[in-house]
């Protein structure tokens, strides 16, 4: 897993607070409406686990703007990773729950952080196995650079320049009890 071990890190800087996260989600929702001329045929698919929370928040905003409920699904990409047996740690497989057809839909993938692009590659493969969407877009709360694949996001909450040694941590009330995004740096390295 890029970013390495979680231990021995301390907070270097806060890059988004709760208000900034809320504003970013509102803006992304507006951009989704604008880009797709409304929300007709738009569905949101969040990557487990924080991408799912963000997708639900975007869906709430979309309903406020357009008055339409947009379906939200949850995608687990563990079975599509390219580092099985190579990574130091083996992630827990969680359930994919997409209770609607994505065939011919405009699918917006939602993730918290875009980094190497490998999770996004895995997510695209996983989605294609569920059907052929009309188009696929990517929304992320933070783009921290360092892509290893030709992938870019369509909607970005905030671009943050980082180094490989740092880790971007997205904390959301649903999982962590607080809304904030911080950069963690290794200590004593």
């Amino acid at each position, binding site marked *: 897993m890029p970013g390495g071990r979680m231990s021995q890190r301390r907070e270097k800087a806060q890059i988004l607070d709760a208000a900034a996260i809320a504003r970013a989600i509102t803006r992304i929702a507006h951009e989704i409406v604008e880009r797709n001329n409304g929300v007709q045929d738009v569905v949101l698919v969040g990557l487990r686990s924080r991408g799912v929370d963000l997708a639900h928040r975007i869906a709430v905003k979309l309903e406020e703007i357009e008055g339409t409920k947009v379906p939200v699904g949850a995608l687990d990409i563990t079975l599509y990773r390219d580092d*099985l*047996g190579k990574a*130091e740690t083996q992630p*827990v*497989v969680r359930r994919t729950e997409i209770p609607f057809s994505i065939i011919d839909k405009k699918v917006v993938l939602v993730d918290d952080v875009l980094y190497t692009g490998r999770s996004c590659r895995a997510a695209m493969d*996983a989605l294609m*196995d*569920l059907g052929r969407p009309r188009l696929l877009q990517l929304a992320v709360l933070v783009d921290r650079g360092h892509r290893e694949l030709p992938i870019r996001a369509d909607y970005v909450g905030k671009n943050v320049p980082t180094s490989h040694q740092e880790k971007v941590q997205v904390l959301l009330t649903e999982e962590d009890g607080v809304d904030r995004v911080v950069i963690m740096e290794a200590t004593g390295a």
Partner: protein
Amino acid sequence: MAVGLKRKDLLGTRDLSPEEIGLILDTATSMKEIASRDIKKVPTLRGKTIINLFYEPSTRTRTSFEIAGKWMSADVINISTGSSSVVKGETLKDTGLTLQAMHPDVVVIRHAAAGAPQILAGLLKASVINAGDGAHEHPTQALLDLFTIREKRGTLSGLKAAIVGDILHSRVARSNIFAMRKMGMQVRVCGPATMLPRYMDRLGVEVFHRIEPAIADMDIIMMLRIQLERQGGGLFPTLREYSKLFGLNLDRLKAAKQDVLIMHPGPINRGVEISPEVADGPYSLILNQVENGVAVRMAVLYLLAGGQTTTN
């Protein structure tokens, strides 16, 4: 959260920790979703080779492992000994070394001799999964039974199960007893005295010789197949008498809980240990067990193939 299957092989439930059993069941829950898809294929085990080495007949276990491997994109090869060099007299050791030279990642073995998977595991770099060895263990069957129970009841701890039938010859009973006890379940066994091994009380189970008191207020009744192929003879007078004394039919079921779950590892002898009305009845989980077998074996293959530890 740092848990994981810190092992190369799955040889039995006896040496699994409750945490490992929980991890396998949780992983299987996620795997089950794949069965509901139009495209039942994930790329997880691409490039991995799984060999099914079956020295005994099997329909559901072999097919289940094969489907589990194929749904995860592994290459699965089936060897049944009737059509292999085993009929020419090759020993288990030589067969194992021959297979090793072909670099499999997982070998699934079923053998009539207890301990055969342990021997193979010592010989091979590949992970070895015990798919049934003699009257010893059949761990993936017990795991899929627990998965099926947990799916229906939401929990395992505190539930009560009666295992009825030919306990002596049953690797399914042994693996289930070990696994159920570890997960906090109460277990009873019931059968003719000739089919109940003496060591049963040492496994922490209650022993019954009549079915009616054994199944009263149980949450689960697990019926076992009379293993005609393993009978030396003389363990009971006739099949008819066995059925009369120990068979599960609608009449006997009246003594059980209203919402009791009926299980059977299959293949069933209709009308012997279980009547058709019960086997096909509303509380029967026999086909759920088969369905869940694929998800549980996917979980085991993933966890053995994927590395040493797990974090979230």
